[in-house]
């Protein structure tokens, strides 16, 4: 679960990290009020969860109240990479001398946590990491021992940080590590970390919480953010759905299987409309809901359902399809591949009840047919 900047900044403040003064606004009047409070000068920041907000025009400086209202009017309701802007964070404009970068994260490659630091922070940090890796400093943190002062001193020395900033930087590093551990986050990132006359300020804040650990964090429950649109509906149903821009709907059991199905469609010259994994041992109800989500996507011209029944039973899938056809309005052609446990029974149910569904024997054949059918429509 990703937190919005304003939510993450609240946590930063709770852990003693300095943040610029700011408030979150959902209406123009609020923007106006907050900008006035900040002395008629402010940064307006679109609250979205997708990355690359700055480059997409989601962060703008206003030097008067009128200008702020004008900017806010443009921002509200606009979307960044498909995510609608509903809230704007109105923040004090600081005089920043330098922009640094600091984060702690789960490191799957090193099987540890890692702290990453650079004095060249800001929106181009990923590019810097690729082009000038010598400017990126990293500490491997063994979760058993935690983060120690000497590791940080060593890093500051290598990064040539002036000694008078060591203490403050160390406090920030330890605070974000504590957040990582105590909130069970996967990522806690400050980018940029602003160097000002008044010290170091977290100008932006990113925290990603491990969804699997949320049950232990009642305090974060209220911050739960669901995605927009169909992805949000799927999340609430506990399904793994990602919308893509093609026109062939995909339903499969297992994430690997779903991705392989998408890839086959691509190889046949088609474009998948989505990723949808109904998981292992899916029920008829789950199957119906999966189909319901895909029929809501207007781009979908054909649906390929690819089921390899291991723990999932083919007859249960077939019953889900019958249920879906009884309860929903489905007018998209469906190609079905059913193989494995209770395959015969599943196919019989489909053949007897759903003449409109085309059954194929292999996933390769199914992908080919789905692409052909979508092309005709």
């Amino acid at each position, binding site marked *: 679960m990703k937190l919005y900047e304003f939510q993450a900044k609240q946590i930063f403040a709770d852990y003693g990290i300095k943040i610029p003064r700011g408030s979150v606004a959902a209406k123009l009047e609020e923007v106006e009020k907050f900008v006035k409070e900040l002395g008629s000068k402010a940064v307006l920041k679109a609250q979205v969860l997708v*990355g690359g907000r700055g480059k997409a025009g989601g962060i703008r400086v206003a030097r008067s109240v009128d200008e702020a209202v004008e900017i806010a009017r443009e921002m509200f309701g606009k979307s960044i990479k498909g995510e609608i802007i509903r809230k704007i964070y109105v923040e004090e404009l600081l005089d920043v001398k330098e922009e640094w970068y600091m984060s702690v994260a*789960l490191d*799957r*490659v090193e*099987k*540890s*946590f890692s702290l990453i630091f650079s004095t060249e922070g800001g929106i181009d940090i*990923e590019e810097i*990491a*690729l082009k000038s890796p010598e400017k990126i400093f990293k500490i491997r943190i*063994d*979760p*058993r021992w935690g983060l120690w002062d000497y590791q940080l001193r060593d890093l500051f020395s290598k990064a040539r940080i002036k000694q008078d900033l060591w203490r403050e930087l160390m406090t920030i590093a330890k605070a974000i590590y504590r957040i990582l*551990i105590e909130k*069970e986050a*996967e990522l806690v990132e400050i980018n940029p970390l602003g160097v000002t006359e008044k010290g170091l300020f977290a100008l932006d804040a990113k925290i990603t919480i*491990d*969804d*699997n*650990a949320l*049950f*232990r964090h009642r305090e974060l429950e209220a911050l739960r953010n669901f995605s927009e649109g169909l992805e949000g509906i799927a999340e609430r149903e506990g399904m*793994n759905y*990602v919308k*893509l821009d093609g026109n062939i709907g995909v339903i*499969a*059991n*297992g*994430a*690997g*299987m*779903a*991705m*392989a199905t*998408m*890839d*086959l*469609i*691509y*190889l046949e010259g088609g*474009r*998948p409309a989505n*990723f949808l*994994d109904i998981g*292992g041992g899916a029920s008829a109800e789950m199957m119906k809901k999966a189909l319901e989500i895909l029929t809501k996507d207007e781009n979908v011209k054909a649906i390929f359902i690819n089921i*390899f*029944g*291991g*723990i999932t039973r083919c007859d249960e899938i077939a019953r889900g399809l019958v249920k879906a056809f009884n309860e929903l309005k489905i007018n998209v052609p469906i190609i079905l591949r059913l*193989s*494995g*446990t209770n395959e015969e029974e599943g196919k019989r149910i489909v053949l007897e009840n759903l003449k409109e569904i085309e059954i194929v024997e*292999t*996933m*390769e054949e199914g992908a080919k047919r789905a692409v052909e059918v979508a092309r005709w429509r």
Partner: protein
Amino acid sequence: MAIIVDENTKAVVQGITGTQGRFHTERMLKYGTKIICGVTPGKGGSEIFGVPVFDTVSEAVKMGANASVIFVPAPFAADAIMEAADAGIKVIVCITEGIPVHDELKAYLKVKEVKAILIGPNCPGIISPGKCHLGIMPTHVFAEGNVGIASRSGTLTYQIAQNLTKIGIGQSTVLGIGGDRIVGLSFSEVLEMFEKDDETDAIVLIGEIGGRDEERAAEFIKRHISKPVIAYIAGITAPPGKRMGHAGAIIEGGVGSAESKIRALSEAGVKVGKTPREVAELVAKEVKR
């Protein structure tokens, strides 16, 4: 021979009294797996399918268990892995999905410390056809033979195993290393075991986007593997930055894309199939049936 599990494997099922544990214990017993006992804290003294249930793993070890398969719910699963590792179990298979990643990291470090093998978490388990099955796999798609399979995906593994079985190619051992970001075994570790196994003549790797395990395996293959390796990588069409399900499949800033994995493996001399069907065809060229 097979790797990790065989006819000498005597397993304890942790979480044997739960719905999942009970269901799959029955299936594993039917397959001929030696399930010698189960563990559910607080249910010690009872019995399921004639299998005695204990409160702790150390009691299971006293009875002779040398492997464990875990069906414990996610909030308690890491505790179950730690318990098995501490009790001296050397093969730990964790089926459970949805374990908090901080827990997984600690359990991983514990298992490495005691030099045990952890398969999973979030995996379909392991099977050495005809000898032992610890997990939730549809056993009918496998056959005894000489191809080893290591995979990050469940269903896709069954699909490829079935394709092989249908053309008369059986498997020595098939295992899902798990779909989570932190899993017990790397592809390289499994490759090394298959390389040393007399019964394995060719190795199939089934990978997917995310992480660097396939790239590292490619480096390892160049230096240490003499047997033919055939691979499949899912996720060519997965967009960057999106997590495809709760599997570990996520492209992190361009690293770990399907393209980068396919390139690395091809450069290491691995034949990469474009479709699951093509994987079976490539294997057929390398091994005697």
